[in-house]
């Protein structure tokens, strides 16, 4: 065995032991708050295994831009598009919005729709479900690397991996397919707005999820897209409020429902 491999193994054992002790301690502490994390409606600040607890059904207010209001920092985003991107965006219109074909809006767009989002955790993973479009995200929370290149292919929602920074879950998302838009066609922060919000396959999103009290979840994202934007764009902080249900509704997006349904769903 090479020295490098040996070092890795020894390191892994030390880290493993530390992790294990951490998990054991968390479980032992749980003794006093019995059944804390097992009830579907109950809530604790930490999960049984000692992570910040983001579990719940959460709902934000609809955000966007139009009629003189810009609640999602979209005027700033519009100014960041490259001239090439602007030229392409002038040729497109609302009917080209991919959600019209039932493709799911990726985060951060999904966070501005005002539809419920459900988060469920287990050791090593967080799962995010959205009601506006029936889709799930699987987010490893151990800080492990992204899916290796051999198995990585571009998707609508991208490939996520996350780590805890204190009580904030920082999610790194890459490998988008460049089909999604960053906002909806109804979002027109200025008179010159096209309502078109293109992305590319070079998009890189860093999200920050944090619970600030029992009933409030904060979300913020930073979007980089060197093929489309001259600089990274920051979303404002989105406030989600806890809902009293134990799971989101099943709302399928099927072409047979007609385009009116999709637009209605986007809150236009």
């Amino acid at each position: 065995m090479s020295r490098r491999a040996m070092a890795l193994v020894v390191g892994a054992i030390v880290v493993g032991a530390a992790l294990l002790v951490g998990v054991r301690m968390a479980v032992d502490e749980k003794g006093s708050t019995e059944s804390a994390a097992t009830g579907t409606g109950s809530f604790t600040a930490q999960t049984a295994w000692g992570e910040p607890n983001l579990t719940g059904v959460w709902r934000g207010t609809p955000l966007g831009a139009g009629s003189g209001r810009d609640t999602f920092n979209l005027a700033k985003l519009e100014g960041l598009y490259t001239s090439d991107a602007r030229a392409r965006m002038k040729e497109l219109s609302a009917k080209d919005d991919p959600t019209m074909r039932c493709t799911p809006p990726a985060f951060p767009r999904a966070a501005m729709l005002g539809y419920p989002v459900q988060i469920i955790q287990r050791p090593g993973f967080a799962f995010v479900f959205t009601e506006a479009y029936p889709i799930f995200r699987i987010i490893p929370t151990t800080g492990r690397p992204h899916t290796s290149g051999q198995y990585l292919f571009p998707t609508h929602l991208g490939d996520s991996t996350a780590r805890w920074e204190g009580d904030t879950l920082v999610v790194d998302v890459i490998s988008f397919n460049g089909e999604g838009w960053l906002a909806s066609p109804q979002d027109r922060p200025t008179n010159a707005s096209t309502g078109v919000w293109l992305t590319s396959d070079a998009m890189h999103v860093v999200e920050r999820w944090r619970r600030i009290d029992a009933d409030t979840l904060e979300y913020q994202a930073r979007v980089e897209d060197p093929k489309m934007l001259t600089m990274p764009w920051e979303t404002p902080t989105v406030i989600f409020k806890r809902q009293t249900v134990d799971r989101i509704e099943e709302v399928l997006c099927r072409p047979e429902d007609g385009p009116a349904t999709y637009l209605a769903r986007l809150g236009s």
Partner: protein
Amino acid sequence: MSVRKFAVMAVLACSGIAVLALFVAIGPSGASAQIRTYKPPQTAAPGADWTKRIEEILPPGVESRAEATARIAAYKPDPVKYPVPRTPWDGKPDFSGVYWPDATITPPPVPLESLYRPEAREYREGGGAAAGLIDWRGIDTPNYHCWPPSPVNGSMGGTVQLVSTPGYLLLLNEGGSNFRIIPIIGENGPQPSASRKPSFQGSSVGHWEGDTLVVEVTNFNGKPWLGAAQPPKRLPQTSSDALRIVERWSRPDAQIFEYRVVVEDPKMLTAPWTGSADRRGILPYDTVQESLCFLDPELDARHREFAAKEAKKRGAVR
């Protein structure tokens, strides 16, 4: 927890991580010889048997679906060699894993078709809730319209990921990205909220009976087909809003999970129907991938064309 048990767990966990680290360290050189260039299949000509093509492109040593299904159906669970994983929060079986394929171990005692009410015939001929949408006399099925898979199969498609979490069992379907969130009632836990709209996959409520998770599913929207049509003889196996399904999920050992189902639908069936006992084998992955379902207008046009041709053919035979 005793000190001895703790020590055993620590050794187990560390050795697992060590093996992983070793694999990472030596992996690249060892694995590079294994990588083959993937040749995508040619698009099958219309009418060609594309399922056969998929079997043919598998590299040597990779199991086909048929082989895997036969192996899993014949598998004898061995909980001593492969102990049932248990969750650290309640000690119940941990279903977490990615599973494929679906293998039937016990067929249904009677075919579902034999229980359909004769008076439901007219409704079924029209396609039920899919009237005017799904032309079942051709090759059109709910799958082509991105409906979730049949609730008789737990709304499970091809490859599925199960996730046990405190208070929930999650079902994540790779094909179509449908998911089910199944609340589990704990001994002292609150009742799940019931105020959901009727849906394709219904509202599920689970509870433990020993090591078996029993899930009652109700509140369906009357749309799902329990089984697709097999034209010209078998009509679509439609359901109603009275559909009620009781599922029994178990984990005989770490290699598989098993799934049994009893289906009631007094508006469609004359008696409750016991479905097949099925099981799925675990795969060495911890996530399914994004694979969404879109209604392809071109494919849809081809279905309609095919359906029209088939209908014409049958008309000529009559």
